[in-house]
């Protein structure tokens, strides 16, 4: 405990928020695995507040700055922390539950927020909010998992008794509750009217990222929009995103990108994901992998490009996800594409990219039809022409043959082929028109397949 308040005093002397936040960690650091236990042992519930007050004063006596009110606030905070530590340590011994840990951590959260509202905690201490918010969410998830496990153990009776019991909502009850508290922190940071240098506004992106993670976990990603709307209403007096640490910027850009991705706004999604990719720490492979998981399908639809082996090299999981699919798209093998999509279906759906990848079939088809066009060769040079012109009148029968081949020998009838071609033209993947009565497709002399060099 003494150690803790030495840290507290040092953090205040240096005005180092991260150092201060570390004193509120619910996890013992590797170099001191007994930290939580020794904190717990060094006091008891009847004298804890007095102990804390004494330690704060004795350790910080030689410093000015901490006024009476602030000390009062911090005493409350550390008393609540001590309580929570009690539940965590009991949990390690199997004598407590995650639900209890969550409840006591929630109490700590409320008291910390009160410290900012009522006891004048300074803005440099906001990393404490990060620490508290981060673990509040993790404990909520733990508690939910624990509760649904217990529910599973004695199911039957309980669910029969409650008719209007919605297991899906209930399953994440704690996380929903947690969202409310994170939002309080969000408001606390957003509404600070202090001048920018000493404003809690600097905490906003960290908290937003926590909220994004929460909404995605709750399967209500769209609620993130509400947060973004609120944020943009305040944009004028908010520090620019570029002034924040890269870890926060990358995370924010990732979620913003994925949000656009889920809204099927691939152009915007690409912008944000590329930004996240470029800023990301080069050694953070798991995060780079997550960015690419969305950036690859995104690019497939916006610019119709595929990842190279060089890009996928450090990511075996992405290779498994995308390599065979990419190969099918490139070669225009429709049947193999369908199979590859089917094979990865579970994984694709889980990552919410199935529907986007499905649209990659158009690109596979485009490539197949393009091959027919290339195979058609060139028209004979007419008088006055110097550069050869590709044969632009292609019988529907040839396209049909190619599509039958691409579909693994399945017979596709002419009407369906015409329909597919019409769709290609409509989607601007192919330029030209179908002359039905003559059974040919007349392709544009300039860029029959836009963007592909022919």
């Amino acid at each position, binding site marked *: 405990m003494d150690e803790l308040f030495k840290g507290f005093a040092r953090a205040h002397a240096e005005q180092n928020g991260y150092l201060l936040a570390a004193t509120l960690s619910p*996890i013992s650091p590797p170099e001191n695995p007994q930290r939580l236990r020794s904190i717990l042992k060094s006091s008891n519930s009847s004298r804890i507040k007095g102990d804390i007050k004494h330690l704060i004063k004795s350790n910080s006596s030689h410093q000015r700055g901490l006024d009476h009110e602030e000390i009062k606030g911090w005493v409350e905070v550390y008393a609540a922390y001590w309580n929570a530590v009690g539940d965590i340590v009991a949990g*390690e011994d199997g004598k407590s539950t995650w639900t209890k840990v969550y409840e006591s951590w929630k109490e700590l959260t409320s008291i910390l927020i009160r410290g900012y509202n009522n006891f004048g905690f300074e803005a440099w201490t906001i990393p404490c909010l990060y620490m508290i918010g981060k673990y509040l969410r993790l404990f909520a998830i733990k508690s939910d998992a624990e509760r649904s496990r217990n529910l599973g153990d004695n199911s039957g009776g309980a669910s029969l008794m409650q008719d209007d019991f919605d297991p899906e909502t209930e399953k994440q009850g704690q996380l929903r509750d947690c969202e409310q508290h994170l939002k309080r922190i969000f408001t606390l940071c957003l509404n600070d009217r202090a001048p920018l240098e000493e404003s809690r506004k600097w905490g906003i992106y960290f908290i937003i990222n926590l909220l994004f993670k929460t909404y995605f976990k709750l399967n209500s990603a769209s609620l993130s929009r509400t947060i973004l709307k609120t944020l943009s209403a305040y944009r004028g007096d908010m520090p620019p995103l570029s002034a924040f640490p890269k870890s926060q910027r990358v995370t924010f850009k990732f*979620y913003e990108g994925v949000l656009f991705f889920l809204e099927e706004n691939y152009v915007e999604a690409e912008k944000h994901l590329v930004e996240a990719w470029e800023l990301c720490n080069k050694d953070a492979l798991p995060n780079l992998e997550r960015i690419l998981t969305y950036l690859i399908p995104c*690019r497939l639809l916006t610019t119709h*490009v595929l*990842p190279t082996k*060089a890009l996928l090299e450090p990511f075996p999981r992405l290779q498994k996800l995308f390599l065979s699919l990419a190969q099918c798209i490139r*070669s*225009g093998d429709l049947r193999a594409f369908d199979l590859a999509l089917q094979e990865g279906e579970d994984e694709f759906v889980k990552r919410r990219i199935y529907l986007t990848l499905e649209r990659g079939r158009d690109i596979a088809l485009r490539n197949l039809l393009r091959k027919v066009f290339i195979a058609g060769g060139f028209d004979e040079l007419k008088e006055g022409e110097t550069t050869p012109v590709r044969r632009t009148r292609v019988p529907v029968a040839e396209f049909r*043959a190619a599509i039958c081949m691409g579909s693994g020998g399945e017979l596709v009838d002419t009407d369906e082929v015409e329909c597919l071609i019409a769709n290609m033209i409509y989607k601007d993947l192919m330029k030209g028109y179908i002359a039905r009565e003559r059974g040919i497709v007349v392709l544009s002399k300039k860029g029959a397949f836009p963007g592909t060099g022919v």
Partner: protein
Amino acid sequence: MASTTTEPKVAEPEQSTSNEQQKPEQKHLALGEDDEFEDFPIDDWPADQTEAAQRNGETKHLWEESWDDDDTSDDFSNQLKWVVGSLLVSTLLLTALSLDFRPRRRFR
């Protein structure tokens, strides 16, 4: 966050069934973060530690066009001709088979 994230060592009996495919992810599962963006171990890093700097701003070799022109198009065009021919034959056959040879009733 400046501190390293180590998971609390509290009993974690879940996830024993699907252990096989999730081995590399076990650490995140223990933290309750299965598939979400991870916290970076450091808060900020200099520009030369970013992915963009790593690639020297040169990203062209990472993406390639989605079609394949290396494929010998001669093979494809021969195959195509053959299939066009056989489709023509089969279509003719099908049409012939489905022709209705019964005399039609005529109205006067």
